[in-house]
């Protein structure tokens, strides 16, 4: 694609990678947290709920800065993860994925939670009388039934990840080939005189790529929903 410079091409691929990894890695947590929020009667749930909403409520820059302070090389969590697991987020694409995952998490959790709350507990009871353990009930009844919600959550988070910029650039900077995602690249162009056209061009690419992914997943979700609906 000569329409894009090699550097931009890299940014496109990186964005896709970051968004995909962010969604894939956060999905299990998203489902787990949604389950807890929808079902658990433990007293601390409101706190978890609050925590999940934070990235939505705070300006992205703040979230990015908080990530930098905690997951940075010198941060408490970042230092620990680095020393113990050799995991480094700071200024790596993994960090961009982390930022994207965090920013998309409230959206993902909310969609999944909504779906969980809509599941008819009578079906889960039926599964229990048939001998299914809690885990089996979840895997064979709840999960398939909330699949449209899980997909919706994943789509939202993916779209968000493709557009995330504030937290990412604050956390992992804007290093071409490393952490420069499409939105960061767009931002760069918007910061220079006469960069608007370039920015618009990249925005167009972003729209095509991200929307393509979103619309395709929509199609999948629709088919899944239909399959469950019967016929």
């Amino acid at each position, binding site marked *: 694609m000569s329409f894009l410079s090699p550097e931009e091409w890299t940014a496109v691929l990186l964005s896709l990678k970051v968004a995909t990894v962010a969604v894939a890695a956060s999905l299990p947590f998203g489902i787990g947290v949604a389950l807890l929020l929808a079902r658990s009667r433990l007293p601390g749930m409101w706190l978890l709920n609050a925590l999940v909403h934070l990235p939505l409520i705070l300006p992205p820059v703040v979230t990015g800065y908080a990530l930098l302070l905690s997951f940075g090389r010198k941060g408490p969590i970042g230092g620990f993860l680095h020393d113990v697991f050799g995991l480094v987020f700071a200024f790596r694409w993994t960090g961009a994925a982390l930022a994207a995952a965090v920013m998309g998490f409230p959206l993902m959790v909310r969609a999944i939670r909504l779906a969980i709350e809509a599941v008819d507990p009578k079906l889960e009871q039926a599964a*229990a*009388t*048939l*001998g299914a*353990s809690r885990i089996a*009930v979840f895997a*064979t009844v709840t999960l*398939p039934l909330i699949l449209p919600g899980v997909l919706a959550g994943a789509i939202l988070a993916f779209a968000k990840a493709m557009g995330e910029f504030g937290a990412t650039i604050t956390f992992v900077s804007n290093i071409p080939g490393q952490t420069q995602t499409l939105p960061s690249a767009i931002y760069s162009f918007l910061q220079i005189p006469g960069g608007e056209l370039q920015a618009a061009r990249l925005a167009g690419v972003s729209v095509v790529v991200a929307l393509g992914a979103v619309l395709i997943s929509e199609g999948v979700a629709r088919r899944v929903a239909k399959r*469950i609906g*019967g016929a």
Partner: protein
Amino acid sequence: MMLEVSLTHDFGSFAVDVAFTAPAGVTALFGASGAGKTTVINAVAGLFRPTQGRVVAQGEVLLDTGRGVNLPARRRRVGYVFQEPRLFPHLSVRSNLLYGARFAPKAAPGPGFDQVIEMLGIGALLERRPGALSGGEKARVSIGRALLSKPRLLLMDEPLAALDAARREEILPFIERLRDAGLPVLYVSHSIGEVARLASTVVLLDAGRVLAAGPAAEVLSDPALAARLGGAEAGTVLAATVGETAPDGLVRLDTAAGPVWVAEPPGAPGTRLRLRLHASDVILARARPEGLSALNILPGIVERIEPEPGGRAFVRLRMGREAVLARLTQRSVTALGLAPGVACHAVLKTVAVSRDDLGAG
């Protein structure tokens, strides 16, 4: 005792206070709509935790609120046929049917897949989703799903309500066989016919309380309860043994009250059966009548006469070990001069004994 149930709970607008025990076999829960039948079954299944309650099945304590025991539903291994089908909408009929099998111990006894789908007539539906089934088809799949989970206790909440008579006729013997193989069944039905045919024990519920509980023959032939069961449905259950088959195809059943000829093929000679005689079907005569199409004429002695509103009466006829209930008009009671101690004959049409009235012993 195979099953011991006691529970009290207050829903606010409705309070349940039920206790009964039942031996092996089918225990029927009978009662008007809203009497608390489903509530009791749910407590046995572990889906409803009453304020106070104790459920013991086959010696195992499933629930004992006093001692803080509450076995989760998944460990109770009950096969529950819910009042509404509750099929898994995202699974095919086949997967619905096979759902419970994978969680059951491999060695557990239970009917085979082919046998069950054959009996329920759902072979053609296996690849469909529940969304594309008719009401009765859903009900049948739901029965199959419970049966195939190899339960230790079967809970059936009006399982046949949505089915036609012919289909019911195919399923009832299957449940009888399961019962006879030793599977305890808690059975809710509004059909006295089904109850009389299947149940060894009947628990009569009314507004959350037990009105009567005991052996089916006793509860069903109790003239005092007859009206509540629906007078038209009252009757007696006789123990019978299949005897000779005559050349014209009729079969003699030997009962303590005398021989009864029936037209339905009830099984090989020697088979033990339960024969239900509808009180409304029994005609009484002082002298042995002749030239009637009715083939069964059993002699007996009037034991008790219980008047019923509407100019009718229930007459209990003692016949050796057994008793037969007849429902007549007071006019006939007077005309025939019936009174306790009077000898008379019970006349019963052979065809009045339908397949529905013959249960495996």
